[in-house]
């Protein structure tokens, strides 16, 4: 059994999802990886997998992209906070961005996220997350 039961990757870029999925699998830190192409799909997955917060396929770590079609990262976070608290698992949400544009950084200040990282995700960055949130 890995350190994290389930990790949700939310990104519209399939290559990114492939890379991150491969990295997480190689590092063997998560049992399940769920992949959503945008915020709405992610909400649907949460709806399906987190009927009880203790469900093994309810994500404990979410890696969230910002720029996505249909529902972007910010919109997802807003929708997420609207959900009933009982249905929201104890989850660590990390934003993955391509830039640290001051404008975007400012927008992240008030959001329920544990941190943000610039892409690409690397072994070192994942290890840092583990050390900080899942030790």
């Amino acid at each position, binding site marked *: 059994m890995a350190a994290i039961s389930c990790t949700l990757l939310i990104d519209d*870029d399939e*290559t990114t999802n492939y*890379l991150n999925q*491969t*990295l997480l699998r*190689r590092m063997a830190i998560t049992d399940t990886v769920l992949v959503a192409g945008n915020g709405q799909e992610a909400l649907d997955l949460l709806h399906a997998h987190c009927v009880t917060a203790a469900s093994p396929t309810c994500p404990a770590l979410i890696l969230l992209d910002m720029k996505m079609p249909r529902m972007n990262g910010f919109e997802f976070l807003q929708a997420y906070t609207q959900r009933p608290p009982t249905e929201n698992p104890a989850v660590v949400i990390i934003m993955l961005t391509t830039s640290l*544009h001051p404008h975007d950084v400012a927008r992240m200040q008030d959001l329920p996220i544990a941190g943000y990282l610039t*892409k*690409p*995700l690397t072994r070192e960055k994942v290890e840092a997350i583990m050390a900080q949130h899942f030790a």
Partner: protein
Amino acid sequence: MPVQLDHANSGAKELKQRYYNFIYQARHNLAGIIDGIFVFAYDVTTLVLARHEVQQLNEELAATNEELHASNEEHVTTNAALQETQQQLQRLNQELEARVAERTQTALTLQADLLAAAQQQAQEREQLYQIFAETPAAICIQRGPEHRYAYANQAYQDFFPGREFLGRPVAAVLPETVDSSVVALLDHVYQTGETYYGYELPLLISQPDGRPPKQMYFTFTYQALRENGAIVGISTFAYDVAEQVQARQQVETQQQELADLFMQAPAPIVILDGPDLVFQLINPAYQRIFPGRELAGKPLLEALPELVGTPIPDLFRSVYQTGEPITVHELPLLMARHEGQATEEIYWTFTYQARRNAHGAIDGARVFAHDVTEQVRTRQQVERLNQELASINEELIVSNEELHASNTQLTRTNVDLDNFIYTASHDLKAPISNIEGLLYLLREDLPPDLVHGEYIGPTLLRMLDAVERFKRTIDHLTEVSKLQKEHAPATKSIALATVVEDVQQDLAPMIQETGARLLVEVSDFPPVQFSEKNLRSVVYNLLSNALKYRSPHRSLHVDVRAHVRAGYTVLEVHDNGLGIDPTHLPKLFTMFQRFHTHVEGTGIGLYMVKRMIDNAGGHLEVHSQPGAGTTFFVHLPHATVTPT
């Protein structure tokens, strides 16, 4: 003078001879015109006859005496006869004596009568002089060819105060009359007997006691004074008419002034007489409006028939009826300036006033009329120009709006461009970070001997290096995009020395590595107005450029100095490096322009430096010589407020 008069008007054929003494004197009315004659006549017949009788008696007595003498001689020679005749003689003598006594008595009586008559005459004369003395007219009598004063009444003496008259010739008493030919007049009257009537003769009469001479005017009569038919002198009646003359002169002067005023007035004035408004007076200013038209003496509507049918006749009627003046501004009337010529539009500003006669009744109109055609036309032109200006203005406003629209469009385009750069950098970053990630993945997946092998290892390294360069370029693009957005970043008062010192510390490893000798002299300069981050960036870029583009042939010297120009502190960064080819200078500050390939760079540094300096109101100059070195002059605007 012996005269035969019919005293009793009895119509007797044979008139008795009578004797008269008399004076004829002209009587002047107040205007100085002769309207009668004073006659002073005395009947001296009795006196004359008595005198004649005495003379006759005396002659008879003398003859008788002679006869007596002859008889006496006869009596002496003839004693007897003497004796005899002595008694007769004595008797005769006694008779004679008695007769003489009687005659003498008669003569004495006659003389007494004569004396009484003379006394009466004198008394009458005295009365006459009394009248003369009291009359306000100046009267004098002069006698002889020198016109010696025989008489001057008080009024006459008052005309010439302080003079001695009686017995003295006129030239001595009134020397001022000599030059004014008065004496010549007197001479003429004296010689010819023709009465002279003087009218308002001016005489400047000198005054005693140092008073200024007095201008007098005389209206007078010189009349020959005759005695026994012969001219013996001149009688003068004179009035001082100075007051009248001066009053009249004053009135004349005033009238002249009024006339001058009227004629010389720059304002056109006319006086129209009577209900037909006949041009009575036209001053030249008015006539100049109608240089070629005959106006004087003609009724208004006859002289200027084009006024019929205009408001003018009604206006005059109104003034005539109400007496209220009327002022009209800029009334256009079609009138001809020359008789018979085409009419033109003349603009008038005028005032009509009622003229009243002595009884207050309106008997004419006064017109003050200005031809304001030129002013009106000028104003119309100005108004037209104003309208043109207004329309130009409107056009300009439209242009301005268009410019504003263009500007808005450009701003929007700029924003779009910024967004594009932002989006592009983001969209480019995603794949490049994927490539980076994939490279890392690949490197992990490849067998270690391959990774460190002869071919794959360097290939991977170059791929990662290329990815790195790609990312840096995107980062710089992002920086440029940020710079565009912060067109007017917050500036503050900054001490140049502090910034240079900070940058110097940041670059310390590179300075050490290059072995450059750095000389910094920027203390004690006025603070500059700049964004601190940008100034740091400027100094960093210039200093790092100096370090990067050093010459391999000599040790690097970098001097950082400053000097003050009006309103600016000029930062100089001088190096003895490679220098810049003159052909490259025009493109030196262009984005992504690179002239050297041996050094790391993106071609963005100097572009950013120039942008930041220009945005802060400064400017950047560069002097360079290939193979010798380069100097950048950064003109940094002074802070308006000294930092505390």
